[in-house]
């Protein structure tokens, strides 16, 4: 079943790439360039899943995830990150991330990660 996805990444290229990967599978309902926009759009759009970059200006993805989770404990957030450091992953999990994909990613990994968090939610 198609889910409503909010794509958060400071890179226009990565947002575009994610939209292409999700086309026909899920509906991208919004895009945010930083953590502040992500929280605002989450409130407004109430997506099923958020794909969240970690390193972003203004507010990073870990802080934004933490805030989204405090607004909605049931929010599903997947960290989409190029950072493969174990300590960073632990921080993301502590902030409430439900899953993560490491860049550069392939379409099957993205779809699987979304399917996993939706299934866990159900």
């Amino acid at each position, binding site marked *: 079943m198609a889910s409503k996805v909010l794509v958060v990444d400071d*890179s*226009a290229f990565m947002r575009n*790439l994610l939209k292409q990967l999700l086309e026909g599978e899920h509906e991208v309902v919004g895009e945010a360039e930083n953590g502040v926009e992500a929280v605002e759009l989450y409130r407004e759009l109430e997506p099923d899943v958020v794909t969240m970059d970690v390193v972003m200006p203004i507010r990073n993805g870990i802080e934004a995830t933490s805030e989204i989770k405090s607004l909605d404990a049931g929010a599903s957030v997947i960290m989409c990150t190029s950072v493969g450091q*174990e300590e960073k992953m632990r921080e993301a999990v502590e902030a409430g991330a439900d899953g993560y994909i490491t860049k550069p990613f392939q379409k099957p990994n993205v779809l699987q990660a979304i399917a996993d968090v939706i299934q866990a939610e159900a």
Partner: protein
Amino acid sequence: MNLDVRSLRTFSRLAHSGAEKAAGSLTTLAGIDTYVNVTKVELGTKSDVENEFAERDLVSVHIGFSGGLDGHTVLAFSPESAERLVDALMPGIDATDADGELAESSLKEVANIMLGGFIDGWADYLDTTVDITTPTYVDDENDGPLDRVDAEGFENGGDDEHVLVFRNQLEAADNAIEFDLYMVPTAASIGTIVEASGDDGALPVESFAAFSEMINDGATQASEDITAMTGIDTTVEVSRLSFVPIEGVPMSLTDAVRRGVVLEFSGTPSGYIAILFDEPSAENIASSLLPGMEGDEAMRQSAIQEIGNITTSGFLDGWANALETTIDISPPKHVHDIGSAIIDPLATDLAQSQEYAFLIDSTIRTDDDEFTCDIYALPDETELRKALKQLSPAA
């Protein structure tokens, strides 16, 4: 054997002063005003040095030294520079002619005088006697570039063992002749020099070798990430850890125009990283990531920024995991300028707190040279020292 930043500074100063003597010798001999561009103390593998010789198609003259210090010195020229130098010494002689005995002989004599002067400086500092061998002319067609250099490394293994290389880039005032002066001492001789510099609290040289391996692993991960993203099959050509006076950092890059990203990293260690592509490579990357979007320059720039971001993560994540720490990375800043101008502000910032810099550089490219990406990292000296301490066998 232990090494410390103080030893490296001593090495750097000695190598620079020796190279200045060598430059002065050439000025006297050939009437060509020559100066030392940059002096680096590099830690790499013997095969890295050989790859560079092969890549640049260098011709070289080798001189061994023994006695108070043991090792090899090499004076290396591009074929064009060799030709111009011979022409200055003996107008009308072709330096690239295989039968050009006179040309070869003149290059050997230049090397003999320059390298002799270089070694004398080290012998004086150590208050010892160092004998030098007769010079040997080597071109890549007849010999492996370092076949004659018996570079005994720290691990006493094969070509992948680490060696300390003193590298000086010299240049004639009119930019027409450029050459590199290498000195590769044996491990035992490095110990002799360290002892003479009276270091205390130095780190085992194995820490530097371990860090050098981490750099290579990071570059390999970065190469794999670029390949995964773009479909362009890349490999790591070279990875080096150099110790260089801070003002020499921008001179380590050529004046070719580069495009890419600069990021700041913080943690242990902190510093700056630049991921730079030559212009055709940057265009190739943007096209492979965004087929059919040649007109969307903003999106193409974003693609280059993102690949710089992913490459940086690939490069630094291994460090963070090996050091059991976290390294934060800033968002990537797009840069498009000549290489030295891109690096200059980063070096200027570090110069506020340090006189010398550890410069890490790795090159990722395709076999056909259609794609080249250079990674330059400039960690904070104090914090890198902390990281190196953590990597020491006793830690």
